[in-house]
């Protein structure tokens, strides 16, 4: 699904990714863990195509097709979805308009007509139920005044509507209490399928109790220093990240 080869990237002359290699197969869930400043979030920005990050060497391909020469919106339409650690508030643009515009753009990419407003509203309302979000949130400004948990559920809602191939969850557990975490994790688990892959970025093992990964990678100084199965996360909980620098 996703293939990252020898990736080097920098921002403002600061090298952040240093020779990263990562292969993610269809339907797999890969957790990326590591200390603060390891470059975990940066990786999510680089894959999704945020401006300001310069890839100096290497390759990122989704289903064999390079992402690097694509703009962020083209990558999204190719199937990349980033669930933000801090979803952006956009007062003035309603959630419904926002999601309809995104959904329309995806359909246009596939050569399909956009859904009419009523059909889309029906779809959005159904998905709201699945993530336990009051449909009234569709009428509000995008993430405007939402609580931390509501924002994360709104991210999940967008994921369900856009049906991406690759989902990156960037610290989805941050700012969530246990109940909210459970709701979000259930939502993610319901979206797991053989054609959809996940990258779960997190500091803590806790999230991985709910979203159980196939592989765990430890990230440090812009590359993977250790990989293993789900048991690696438990081990890290015991040992911390101090050993990395040794």
């Amino acid at each position: 699904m996703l293939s990252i080869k020898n990736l080097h990237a920098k921002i403002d002359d600061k090298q952040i990714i240093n020779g990263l290699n990562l292969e993610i197969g269809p339907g797999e869930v890969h957790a990326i863990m590591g200390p603060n400043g390891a470059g975990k979030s940066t990786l999510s920005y680089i894959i999704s195509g945020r401006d300001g990050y310069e890839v100096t060497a290497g390759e990122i391909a989704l289903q064999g097709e390079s992402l690097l020469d694509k703009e962020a919106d083209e990558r999204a339409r190719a199937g990349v979805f980033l669930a933000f650690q801090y979803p952006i508030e956009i007062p003035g643009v309603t959630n419904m308009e926002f999601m309809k515009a995104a959904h329309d753009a995806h359909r246009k990419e596939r050569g399909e007509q956009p859904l009419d407003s009523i059909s889309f509203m029906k779809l959005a309302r159904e998905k709201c139920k699945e993530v336990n979000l009051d449909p009234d949130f569709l009428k509000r400004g995008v993430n405007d005044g939402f609580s931390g948990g509501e924002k994360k559920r709104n991210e999940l809602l967008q994921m369900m509507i856009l049906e991406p191939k690759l989902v990156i969850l960037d610290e989805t557990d941050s700012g969530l209490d246990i109940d909210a975490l459970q709701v979000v994790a259930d939502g993610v688990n319901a979206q797991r399928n053989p054609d959809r892959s996940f990258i779960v970025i997190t500091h803590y093992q806790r999230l991985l109790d709910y979203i159980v990964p196939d592989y765990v990678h430890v990230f440090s100084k812009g590359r993977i220093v250790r990989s293993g199965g789900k048991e690696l996360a438990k081990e890290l909980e015991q040992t911390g990240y101090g050993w990395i620098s040794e």
Partner: protein
Amino acid sequence: MGTTTTLTAPVAKTYDWLSALREQGLEKLATLSWPGPKTEHWLHTPISKALAELPELSAELNSETVAALGQIGGLDAIRLVFVDGRFQSDLSTGRSGYAGQLSILSQLETSAQEQLEHRLNTTFERALNKDQHIGAWQNLSLLSDGLVIRVAADSQIDKPIHVVLVATPNSRSEQQATRIICDLERGAKACLIEHQVVLPGGQGSFSNQLTEIELEEGAVLDHYRLGLEGQSAVSLSAAHCALGAHARYQGFTLALGGRCQRHDLVVHHLHGGSHCELKGLYLPCDTEHVDVHSCIEHRLPNCTSNEVFRGIMAGKSTAVFNGRIHIHQDAQKTLAELSNRNLLLSPDAEVYTKPELEIYADDVRCAHGATVAQIDELALYYMQSRGISRIDAELMLSFGFINELVEKIELEPLAQFLKPVLQSLFTRAAAAQENPS
């Protein structure tokens, strides 16, 4: 000192009783000079130059074209059309039944003329800064026609009054000005829409429109000013309001910009407990210029003001916003808020914003804020990360920036009329941004 621009006296003096007033206006105007770049209130608006360089155009508009101008779908209103400052009864509809409340300046009987003469000549002098409001003197000197709205105590005009103002290219050579007088007695209510329309083909024009409002105790006026005169227009407009006790003035101003567009808004809280709500948008594109100057005078206690203006500047356009709130010594317990936010869509666009608070009372609550920003890159990235193209995301964000104010327009047909107007404006601005000529 400012430079002086020669003004030609109006050619046609159809309405005799106004000619004496025009002469008085000219006399007063002659004692003033048009502001130059060193006059504080006109610092960024080269009005003298704009007046001197009015495009030389002349065209006849047929009445069918004019009849189609300024139609707002679904709006059940009294429609009053003025072309080049003169009332057009054949194009106006819905006035019958309101004869006691609505009268046309040029059609007044002699006794009514005499009553009004003093009012036309002097009321707007109240605390008028002559340099700042030179447009008001020009209005008197060019006065050709107008509308008088009078609503008796505890009654109302049950339909919006939709005043359609058309300035043809002939307005260049034959300058005319209109005046609207709106007096609401105790507890009376009305809704006024001033709608300056854009001409097909974007031809150049000149207009000067002054509205004077007096609200007695408990009166309520909803006042919409739509400045859609178009890219080549030079226009001066103003609204001067005097509020009685517990009166409520709710103003919405839209200024799309023009060759040179200036709007002055003055509110006097003359008695306790009155409230004014000033909302507005200015949205110049290309090389347009728009200038909004507002001034709220709090003279007595317990009055409130809420002012919210937002501007989006595209292309090489320039906008000026000056929001002054003056709280006099006796105006204790005043609540006044002013917010002005600006969005620059291009590196060549400019905005000059200046909130001014002048407070002489010690027990008041006032807040003001002005921001100038570019479109939020993080929000753009967020939208792009959902598959929305950059250009569409910019459009949505621009529209979102002002939509909060459009959504709050209570007159639903008006909000519905404005949305596509604004959408097409941003589409044009975005296209210009993508393909700079």
